[in-house]
C-alpha cells in the first residue's frame, strides 16, 4: 500500500540557476553586436533644429558632415566662427571635396554611388555656411542630402 502513496516533500525545490549565465551571455552578445561606439568625436556644438515632417536615414549609405560653432572646450583654439567637421577634424570649405571623397571610400563599394550626405548642423549656424556646403556637394555630384533634425516642432516650442 505504502508503495503508491506519494512522498510529499514539504519544501519547494530550488530553482536551478544553471542556465542563468547562458541567458546573460545571450543578452551580452546582442548588445555587443548592436553597440556602435561613437566613431566621431564632436568638435562642434550640435543642437539640432526641430522638425516633424521627417524621413528615416539609411545609415549604411550615408556620410556625415557636422557644422556649427566650436564647442566650449575648443573655443580658445578655433574661435567662435561656424566651422565644418568631417570625420574627426575640422575642414575648410575648399577642403570638403577631398574629405568627402575619402569618407565615401569607407562605404561599401556597391553603395558608393547611392551615397546620401547627412548634414548635422547646429541650429545657431548661419545658412550661408550650409549653402557653401551644398554648392560643394553639387560640384561633387552628391545630390542626395538629408538635414538631420530632432523630433519636435519649432512652432510649438515658441
Amino acid at each position, binding site marked *: 500500500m505504502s508503495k503508491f502513496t506519494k512522498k510529499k516533500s514539504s519544501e519547494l525545490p530550488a530553482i536551478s540557476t544553471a542556465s542563468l549565465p547562458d541567458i546573460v551571455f545571450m543578452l551580452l552578445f546582442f548588445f555587443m553586436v*548592436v553597440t556602435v561606439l561613437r566613431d566621431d568625436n564632436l568638435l562642434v556644438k550640435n543642437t539640432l*533644429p526641430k522638425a516633424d515632417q521627417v524621413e*528615416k536615414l539609411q545609415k549604411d549609405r550615408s556620410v556625415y558632415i557636422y557644422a556649427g560653432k566650436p564647442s566650449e572646450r575648443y573655443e580658445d583654439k578655433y574661435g567662435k566662427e561656424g566651422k565644418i567637421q568631417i570625420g574627426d577634424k575640422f575642414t575648410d570649405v575648399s577642403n570638403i571635396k577631398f574629405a568627402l571623397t575619402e569618407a565615401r571610400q569607407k562605404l561599401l563599394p556597391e553603395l558608393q554611388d547611392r551615397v546620401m550626405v547627412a548634414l548635422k548642423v547646429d541650429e545657431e549656424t548661419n545658412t*550661408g555656411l550650409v*549653402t557653401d556646403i551644398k554648392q560643394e556637394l553639387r560640384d561633387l555630384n552628391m545630390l542626395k542630402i538629408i538635414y538631420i533634425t530632432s523630433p519636435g516642432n519649432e512652432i510649438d516650442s515658441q
Partner: protein
Amino acid sequence: MARRSTPEVNAGSMADIAFLLLIFFLVTTTIEKDKGIARQLPPKEPPTDEQVKIKEKNLFIVNVNKNDQLLVEDELMELKDLRQAAVEFLDNGGAPAGSPEYCSYCKGDRDPASSDNPDKAVISVQNDRLTSYKMYIAVQNELVAAYNVLRDRESERLYGWKFTEVNRAIEEGTYNGNEESAKEKLETIQKLFPQKLSEAEPKKSGS
C-alpha cells in the same frame, strides 16, 4: 611522480562577469535613429540661354531675412501661418474649367491670380546668408507639411488612408497588406501634388 588531479574551476562567478560586461554594453549602447528632411539638390549644369519661364502667379516666394523674419508674397508673416498660406496657394487651381490645366481635385478658391494647378505651382525659398539654420529648417518643415496636408487629403479621398501614415509604415516595415500596390498608390498621390520647392542662391548679407 603521481599525477595530481586538477581541481575543477569554479564557474560560479561566470554569471557575475557576464553581468558586468552586459551592463557596460547596456550603458554605452546608443541605438541611434537619425531622422531628417531629405532633399535632392539640383545638378550642376552649364548655364543655358534658355530660361525656364514661370509665370509670376505660379510662384510662391518665401523670403527670410537675416533677422529670421518671413516675407511671403511681399507680406510679412508669422511662421505659424506659413503652412496654411502654402496649402492655399498649392490647392488654388486657378486655371479655368475646360482648359487642359484645369485641376479637378483642387478645393481652393480658384483665384485666377494665384497658381494654375499643383503641378505648375512652385514654392521658392530665398534666404539671407545670415539666416539662422533653425529658421531655415523650420520653414522647410512647414512647406513639407503643407504638401503632406494635401497629400493626406487626396489619399483619404481616393483610397481611404493617410499618405503620411502609410508611407511611414512602409518605411518601418510594419505595413501589412500589399506593399507594391500601396507604393504605386503613393506615387499616384505624389504626382497629384509634386513637391516643387526651389531654392534661390542666398543673397549677400545685409541687403
